[in-house]
């Protein structure tokens, strides 16, 4: 198995406050990793640092993606190289239809990779296929990006974007929060559909619930800016029973 992502002794701060304090993580292609942990541990910070948000500053350590340090790479280039982040709070862009947005994203990524743009018809068919897969109303494609969407619709839209873009490394920040049980199943199916030997997924979550649908290979506990414990799926169940307190005390 080839290594897709390697994070070494990562320190990162936002607004001058250090959040990640020496984080280590290795993710191979084909794997699903779950990152759990109490509020304020740095889970969302990790997602944003991986996606390339500029107000999150890496102060030391390295993030290697397919062997290259990407710490200085702008967000759009990371996207083109296959890194996708599912937002905890997806952003609304009024007046810009989901269709236009998806098309702009796909073509920008293809351009960056030196590939030709997709023909309009092929693209439309591809998007419709994915919309159906996510059991969404095709009419949503002409609505503004996340404009007036419910919390659950927004999360579903994140997974739709992921399915359309077909990234290599998927970082999903609390994608399960705010979903009812039906939506959780659809979202999980979407995530599972992307599992393949070439891809890897990092699930950032508070709850065991999502992991019942998307089986992780590894579970990590993030506390106070570092991975304090790693294990298999059983670790998640243990956390569900005992909470995080016993780890922090240790």
């Amino acid at each position, binding site marked *: 198995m080839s290594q897709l992502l390697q994070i070494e002794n990562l320190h990162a701060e936002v607004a001058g406050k250090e959040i990640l304090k020496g984080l280590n993580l290795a993710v191979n292609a084909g794997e699903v990793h779950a990152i759990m942990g109490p509020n304020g541990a740095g889970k969302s910070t990790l997602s944003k640092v991986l996606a390339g948000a500029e107000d999150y500053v890496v102060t030391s350590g390295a993030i290697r993606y397919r062997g290259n340090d990407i710490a200085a790479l702008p967000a*759009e280039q990371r996207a083109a190289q296959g890194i996708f982040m599912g937002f905890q709070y997806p952003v609304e862009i009024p*007046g810009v239809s989901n269709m236009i947005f998806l098309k*702009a994203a796909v073509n*920008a*990524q293809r351009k960056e990779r030196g590939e030709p743009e997709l023909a309009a018809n092929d693209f439309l068919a591809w998007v419709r296929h994915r919309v159906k897969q996510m059991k969404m109303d095709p009419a949503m494609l002409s609505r*503004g990006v996340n404009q007036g969407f419910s919390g659950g619709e927004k999360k579903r839209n994140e997974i739709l974007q992921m399915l359309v873009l077909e990234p290599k490394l998927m970082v999903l920040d609390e994608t399960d929060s705010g979903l009812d049980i039906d939506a959780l199943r659809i979202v999980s199916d979407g995530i599972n559909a992307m599992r393949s030997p070439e891809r890897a997924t990092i699930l950032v979550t508070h709850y065991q619930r999502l992991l019942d649908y998307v089986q992780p290979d590894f579970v990590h506990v993030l506390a106070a800016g570092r991975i304090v414990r790693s294990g298999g799926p059983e670790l998640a169940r243990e956390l569900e029973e005992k909470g995080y307190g016993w780890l922090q005390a240790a």
Partner: protein
Amino acid sequence: MAANPSDTLVPAKEIEALVQNRKYEAGFVTDIESERVPPGLSEDVIRLISAKKREPDWLLEFRLKAYRRWLTMAEPKWAHVHYPKIDFQAISYYAAPKSMANAPKSLAEVDPKLIETYNKLGIPLREQEILAGVVPDKPQVAVDVVFDSVSVGTTFKKKLAEAGVIFCSISEAVREHPELVKRYLGTVVPVGDNYYAALNSAVFTDGSFVFVPKGVRCPMELSTYFRINERNTGQFERTLIVCEDDAQVSYLEGCTAPQRDENQLHAAVVELVALDRAEIKYSTVQNWYPGDEEGRGGIYNFVTKRGDCRGRASKISWTQVETGSAITWKYPSCILRGDDSVGEFYSVALTHHRQQADTGTKMIHLGRNTRSTIVSKGISAGHAQQAYRGLVRINERAEGARNHTRCDSLLIGSNCGAHTFPYTEVRNPSAVLEHEATTSKIGDDQLFYCRSRGIGEEEAVSMIVNGFCKDVFKELPMEFAVEAQKLLQVSLEGAVG
């Protein structure tokens, strides 16, 4: 309501970098011999202009009356714009390409350099090309072109004449249809209406005239392109559009000017008259040279545009996309005189660098059950200042009048400003008025969201701005909506670091 971005709306530093160079693609100068009246304004100059244009006495009298009124008036100072005092004696009030002295009989006789200029601007002046199907998908658009002070050619005249539509330069209309011009000129915007309207009435040189007779629906879009080429020249065009009962027309004007260090004055007057059940749709894509980053040069765009819904159930709709001019002062308005008449104003105004705009509309409800809609979208970047100023007046007799106003501002960067000055005067208690206003900025979160999907910053800004303007773009004729989007994109070019 005024929003100052320096307090709560300070975006992060990367958006700061949005405010960079902007290319002005229409900024070339055409090297063409021209005949120009020396700078300065007096009754003699007005008589000279009138004589050059071989005008009838009544029009000279109209001009002189306006000039005498103008002398007694003072420049308006209430707008939220700042500029040095204009020296009206330093402006030349008439410039014409020399080859126009013996007016061409057809486009074939027009100076090839002029044609080249308009080709550069992408104006389909050569109707034969369009007719020959060079651009097969493009709908037919009749175009009148005004270069500095004179009209250089109107296309599709024959086809329009067959439908009974008159579309020509105002000078030609004065010669060929004096009774029509005399009946309507100055009836919507009187000579003494305001300082710049009075100046225009005194010295206007050319512009377009449209007359659509009873029951006729104009068979194609009409369009005028205005171009200021000469240095130190003012452009004072005059447009008059009349739709008789049940007539309809859609008209578009486009404007550009070369890049020059000095400021140039553009003081136009546009009058629209809609009789019973007539509909006039007037769209503007204005891209006058806005000046450079430091605010050097650029057009002063001081324009009076007014439509009179004179007949019952008539409708006048203004749509404007404005990205140009150093300073804009304009309020396309509707007088809703006829019962059940409808007025609309859809506006996108983009200001960048040191541009200043004070723009909006007036909806004057005089008739019963009159309705008006105002949608204004303002975008400010750089050090630009923009104000929306809108008046909704409901008079005593305007039983059942309605107005809906929506006014949104979008800020890019932390040094620009957006201000909203709504005025309402209601003298009839049955009126229903709604006013919505928002001020937002292109957020870091929106940009990051787009970038995390692979969309670069510049494209993201352009996409977000287009989304913001969607409600207005959908009011533009299709082909011009595309043009307007491109124009915004160009205007925001280099806006990202």
